[in-house]
Each structure stands twice: as structure tokens, then as C-alpha cells.
């Protein structure tokens, strides 16, 4: 056996390496068709989630510490008075941080009150995908609620995306601008119907509205909201505003680009809609 391994190990390892991606392709990387991960994946993913969650905490603490250090450095140069100013600056910065968090939470609470018909589960963003080609957020669920794939994810500004996979306390959320995202939508002004698809562009989070007929007179600035069709998103949740309309002659559909109402680079807390409360 050992001599067999010694003789053929290069071939065996090469075979395993080449076969692995195809196995992943065939098995959806360990998830079943409904998007539920297997036991091994769930355990590892939960461990990863804890590390990422701890990492997020460390990064936030380190950022605050570095800010303090910088301020302390300046204070040392200007003796007591400057030290006092630095202390006040620090307090002010903390206060601003608290106020901003307060405002965000107020918005979320306001959203929750405004939509008390939904069963909303709060979650915190702890990580992202590690490629520039996809737009996936990893969130940590802040309650014992059980989530399922395809549940909508929102913030006060509008739609964030939908749950792709759930691993214990953590879930992967496919953002609206991910190229795999498709949301049934309508223009609020004209009620024209289309499908919002992510473009996956690098510097922005633009989406496009597919299957919007040429005769539907959509214009720049129109609000695009969820249609409620498709059984995933409730109706009238804001997706974004029309940024650009390109009408093409002799084509069935027009090219409409949408700028999402949510700034995905600054999301910290989200809500998952579990259904009607």
C-alpha cells in the first residue's frame, strides 16, 4: 500500500485536485437543492462565522484604539490644554458614533413599526464574500428565530437582498446587485413591470431592469419597488431609483439601470422578513 502511494502519489493528488471542483459543481459545495448545507459544512461554516464575528469585533476595537492613539499623539505635543481638547474630541467622536448608531437603530425601529405586518428578525453584518465577482453578505442572526433560504432581507432604506443559505446563527445574503439576484419589480409611477437583476459591477452596485417593454415610459428618477409577485418579496418595498434609460430601436425591451436605494458598503444591521406576523 505504502509503495503504491509512493509510486502513484503525484497522479493520485493531481486526480483529487482536478476532480474537486467538479465534485463541488455537482454537489453545490455540500448544500442540498433547497440551499440547506450538510452537517460538515454547517459545523465549519458556524466556526468560520464565529471567527468572522470575533474578527469584526477586533477590527472595530482596533479602529477605536488607533483613533485614540492618534489623538493621544497630538495631545502630547500640546501639553495639558491640547490633552483636554483631545479628550473632548474623543468624547465627541464617541458621542457622534453613539448618535449615528442611535439614528440607525431608530430608523430600523421606525421601519419595524411602519411594517408591523411583517415578522422581522434583526441580524448584524459580520463579513462579505472574498471575490470581486459576487455580492454576498454574511450576517449573524440576533435571535433564536429559524431562517430559511429565499427569505427577503431589508433595511429602512429598502431591499438588501435575499437569504441564500443558513448555517446555524449565520446566513449568507445575496445582495440585490449580485449577478444572481432576480427580483420581480414595478415602476411605482407607471406600474410598468420588470425583473431587477444585479450587474455585479465593481465600483457601484447598479442593477438593470430586464423585460421592461419599449412602450412603458419609464424615466430617470422613477422609483422601482417590489411587485409582490413571485412569492418571495412583499409588495411595495423600495429597491432603488432609475439612473439611466436607453431605448433601442427595433427591440422589444428597453435598457433601464437602477441605482439601489441602499448603500451596501455601509450596512451594519439588517432585518430578515420571515413572513406576516
Amino acid at each position, binding site marked *: 500500500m505504502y509503495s503504491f502511494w509512493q509510486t502513484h502519489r503525484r497522479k493520485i493528488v493531481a486526480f483529487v485536485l482536478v476532480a474537486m471542483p467538479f465534485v463541488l459543481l455537482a454537489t453545490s459545495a455540500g448544500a442540498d437543492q433547497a440551499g440547506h448545507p450538510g452537517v460538515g459544512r454547517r459545523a465549519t461554516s458556524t466556526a468560520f462565522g464565529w471567527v468572522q464575528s470575533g474578527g469584526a469585533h477586533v477590527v472595530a476595537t482596533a479602529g477605536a484604539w488607533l483613533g485614540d492613539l492618534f489623538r493621544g499623539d497630538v495631545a502630547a505635543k500640546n501639553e495639558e490644554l491640547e490633552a483636554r481638547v483631545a479628550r473632548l474630541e474623543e468624547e465627541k467622536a464617541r458621542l457622534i458614533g453613539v448618535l449615528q448608531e442611535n439614528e440607525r437603530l431608530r430608523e430600523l425601529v421606525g421601519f419595524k413599526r411602519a411594517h408591523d405586518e411583517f415578522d422581522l428578525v434583526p441580524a448584524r453584518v459580520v463579513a462579505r464574500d*472574498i471575490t470581486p465577482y459576487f455580492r454576498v453578505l*454574511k450576517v449573524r442572526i440576533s435571535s433564536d428565530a429559524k431562517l430559511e433560504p429565499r427569505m427577503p432581507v431589508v433595511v429602512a432604506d429598502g431591499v438588501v437582498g435575499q437569504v441564500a443559505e443558513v448555517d446555524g446563527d449565520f446566513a449568507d445574503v445575496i445582495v440585490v446587485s449580485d449577478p444572481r439576484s432576480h427580483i420581480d419589480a414595478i415602476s411605482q409611477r407607471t406600474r410598468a413591470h420588470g425583473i431587477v437583476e444585479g450587474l455585479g459591477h465593481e465600483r457601484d452596485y447598479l442593477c438593470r431592469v430586464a423585460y421592461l417593454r419599449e412602450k412603458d415610459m419609464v424615466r430617470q428618477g422613477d422609483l422601482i419597488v417590489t411587485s409582490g409577485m413571485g412569492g418571495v418579496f412583499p409588495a411595495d418595498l423600495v429597491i432603488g431609483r432609475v439612473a439611466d434609460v436607453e431605448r433601442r430601436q427595433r427591440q422589444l425591451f428597453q435598457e433601464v439601470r437602477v441605482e439601489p436605494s441602499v448603500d451596501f458598503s455601509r450596512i451594519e444591521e439588517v432585518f430578515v422578513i420571515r413572513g406576516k406576523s
Partner: protein
Amino acid sequence: MPGFLTWIVAVLLMLLESTLLAAFGVENLCLQTALGVTFYLALERDFVPGAATLAALLLPIEWLVAGVPGYYALGLVTVFLLLRLVRGSIQGGWSVARFLLAVVAAMLHAITMVVALLVSDPSSPVVGAVLWQILPASLTAAVGCLLVGRLFARLDAAMAPRQRGLLDGI
């Protein structure tokens, strides 16, 4: 550095990257550490330990990528095997030559994904997203390859200082 330690450091690097991307919201500066690790394994490890470590990394990479399953891993394996062919002709040290090679490797990775997607799912919108970002993603990934390479080189030197001294003497 032993294979299992390489695996652990690589996974920790990828977890750190995903956390930092979420903390700062800078997706356009994604360094693709997974590609950096592949680049390092292909150029600095013997075939069997390098391929075995990469094979063991593919599953966690796919989970952290959270993309269409398999395609990203397929790109990494292709890059690994192609880099093995040229590793003898590339200068040692993590400098400009390797940066340029890393740009090409990152492009090859993206092209492999595109070809695989076109074969299996031609209408996939992911193709457009990958093509749109192929150039900026390659440049940032090349920077990531150098950073990861330098880090692993340091760790290798720290783990086996005597071996390094002997080689330097030759």
C-alpha cells in the same frame, strides 16, 4: 512550513479578508487571498504537498466565496496547474516579475470561470459580471498575491531558519 499550518494560515487570512471587507465596505479592493495562496503554493511548494494543501482548501474557499459552487475552485486549480508549468522560468523573490505573472494568473482564473460558465450555463449573468471586472480584479489580486507570498515566505523562514541559511550559502 508544514501543510496543515499552511492550511490554517490560509483559512485565517481568508476569514480576515472577509471581515475587513465587511468592516470597511471596500469590495473593489478585494485582494482575493485565495488566489494569492494558490499562487504561492504553485510557485513555492513541491507538487504533492502544494496540490494536497490546495485540494484541502477548495471547500472552505467555496464556502467563503459564496458564489456559484465550483467555478471559482475550478479557476484556482487551472491557475495552479498552469503555474506549475512556468515555475522554473520565473525569478525568485516577490518582486515585479511575480507581480506581472500574478496579473496574468488572475486573468486566467477569471477566463477559466467565464469559459466554464459559458459551457455549462451560457445565459448566466455572472459571465457579464466577471468580464466587467476582469482587469481591475486582476490588478488588485496581483497585489494580494505579492502580499500573501511575502507573508508565507516570512513564515517559511521563521519555521525553518537553518534550511534557509544553507540555501542562502549555496
